[in-house]
């Protein structure tokens, strides 16, 4: 990871010095263990605060939406796929961007690690695939592969799919990954059990919309839940309204979600919002052989029509 950050700084410095970009979007070290903060650098001095480690799970493509500047952006596999989606959906132009690609071995799951210990974690360091966690009365070393964010553990596009610079050699992609076991488990349930599963999942949701706002796909000028004329969804804690928000959001992400996990990472209540988006992701894969954000040449299946599109669902 250390060589990554040196390279990121080197490339970023060069881009700014040569005035190829107006700003670089990356991460700086956060004030808590396992937290980094997305930030920008407009001069070479700011670049010194850049970091790269296993706590860069926020999807930086989210910070590109409708920007006018020329931007250098640090992008791991999933960010690069959302950059592709942003380009396809005209949220940013390809020629505004210099993409600094980072081959990724996954981000660690801060919530999972915090839940493993009874008292507060005060320091987390990483070295060679090992994560050392320290706190009051404990000091434990974990295998990074055991504490990855769930989406990273099943990720099959760790290398950026689009980039102008690459900070290191590509990493090996994970093979023979079963990406949809959790979706199949829900699919196999009775309608009542599915309903109960979703209800349980959402029962602590406070509708803070951190999941939606962390998502690079959720850039609508006015989200349907915020619409007032007409108002589609109630704003209280009524479970029907909360469900409506989550179900509709998931449908809006169909064929666009890259399973970057930013939504889950953002949720203050630890809700696995991916349980919804992944079903749609699986359907797109099975029905259209489609994985979002792999190429800027191809239109997503839900904004095109092909005579061969599956239509068995029309009775």
């Amino acid at each position: 990871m250390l060589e990554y950050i040196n390279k990121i700084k080197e490339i970023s410095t060069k881009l700014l010095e040569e005035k190829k970009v107006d700003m670089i979007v990356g991460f700086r070290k956060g004030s808590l263990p396992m937290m980094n903060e997305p930030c920008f650098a407009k001069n070479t001095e700011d670049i010194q605060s850049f970091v790269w480690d296993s706590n860069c799970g926020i999807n930086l493509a989210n910070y590109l939406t409708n920007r006018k500047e020329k931007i250098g952006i640090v992008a791991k596999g999933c960010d690069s796929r959302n950059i592709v989606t942003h380009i396809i959906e005209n949220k940013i132009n390809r020629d505004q961007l210099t993409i600094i690609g980072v081959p990724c071995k996954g981000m660690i799951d801060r919530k999972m690690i915090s839940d493993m210990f009874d008292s507060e974690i005060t320091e987390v360091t990483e070295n060679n695939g090992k994560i050392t966690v320290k706190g009051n009365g404990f000091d434990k070393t974990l295998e990074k592969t055991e504490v990855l964010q769930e989406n990273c553990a099943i990720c099959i596009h760790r290398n950026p799919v689009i980039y102008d610079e690459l900070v290191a050699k590509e990493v090996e992609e994970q093979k023979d990954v079963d990406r949809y076991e959790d979706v199949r488990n829900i699919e196999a349930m009775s309608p009542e059990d599915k309903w109960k599963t979703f209800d349980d999942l959402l029962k602590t949701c406070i509708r803070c919309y951190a999941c939606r706002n962390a998502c690079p796909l959720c850039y609508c000028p006015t989200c349907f839940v915020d619409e007032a004329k007409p108002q589609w969804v109630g704003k209280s804690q009524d479970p029907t309204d909360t469900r409506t928000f989550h179900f509709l959001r998931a449908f809006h992400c169909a064929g666009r979600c890259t399973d970057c996990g930013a939504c889950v990472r953002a949720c203050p209540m630890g809700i696995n919002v991916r349980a919804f988006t992944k079903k749609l992701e699986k359907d797109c894969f099975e029905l259209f052989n489609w994985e979002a954000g792999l190429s800027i040449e191809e239109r997503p299946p839900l904004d095109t029509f092909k005579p061969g599109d599956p239509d068995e669902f029309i009775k």
Partner: protein
Amino acid sequence: MKVIKIDKTKWAEGLNKLRSDYQLIGPVKKDKYHDFQMLGKDQLPDVELLNTRMSPKSVVFPQSEVMLEYSLDETKEDHHIIKEVEKDASPRAVFGIRPCDAKALMLVKLNFDTSDYKDPYWIKAFEASTFIGMACDDPASTCFCTSTGCGPYNEEGLDVLMIDVGDHYLAKGITEKGEKLLKTAGWEDTSDDASLIESKKGEAEAKITSKVATENLKDKAILDLYEAPFWEDTAFSCLNCGTCTYVCPTCWCFDIQDETHGKKGIRMRNWDSCMFPLFTLHTTGHNPRETQIHRVRQRFMHKLKYFTDKYEKGIMCVGCGRCVRLCPVNIDIRTVCDKMNNYAASS
């Protein structure tokens, strides 16, 4: 006021005695995290837990609260008449509230209970409540209450302060309400451990190493701070979600909504957040806080400057650390506060 000693073996018994006179509320585990909830029969509050994910402000200010109701059914005599909803104002005892959250109630009170405006819903709920606090001997690294005019043994907003002393609790009655509760519970062994409380307090305060500096904020002109150069950098990563304001014990903003289902309707209020673009959207379509920078700056300026100037009660933050821990992108109020304070001193 006198200090009572409660043997932990007598704890549940006392609580049970209270159940006929009070509804008990306290921290219990809800799904993954603890939250303040109405306790079921035999359920005990987890008073030794450091703090809940959501603050206890919902005990007096629920996230969604029905205020009025009406009927559109013209066959009914009282159709189209807006009526107050019956509220339960019976006594409630709130256990395990931490000093920061109790102090926050006093800050929120400045808004809901003024000489000009009295919010009947908040005041009723507040007056019905007896707050039994728990002193903090083992604060988190994100607790910074000692520099917000509060502290791990602070008594403001509390009716009783409890201190954990291993096999027993010490309970200090602070108000009459609190004394009454202790009596009803039948905890009567007096203790002369007042000096122990003082020494434990000192130890606890010394454990809080996280601090914010606020002394220069008051004298700096509003517009100077407003136009400070760091807002773009501070605001950049913000998602404009509702996390920081919803988890905050001192944030008090709400939005009023009418909902009609068939012929029945309600008027309710729901928490709102200055971080949402909709918060300030005018019916004309104009939005005075149009960008993310406007909104982030508003949150910090309100908490650290406007509030400070208006009420002269310090900052609108008690240092509970919730927003620090839960912000998805690690925007840390301690950092922002220090930036503002340093800027106020330097320019």
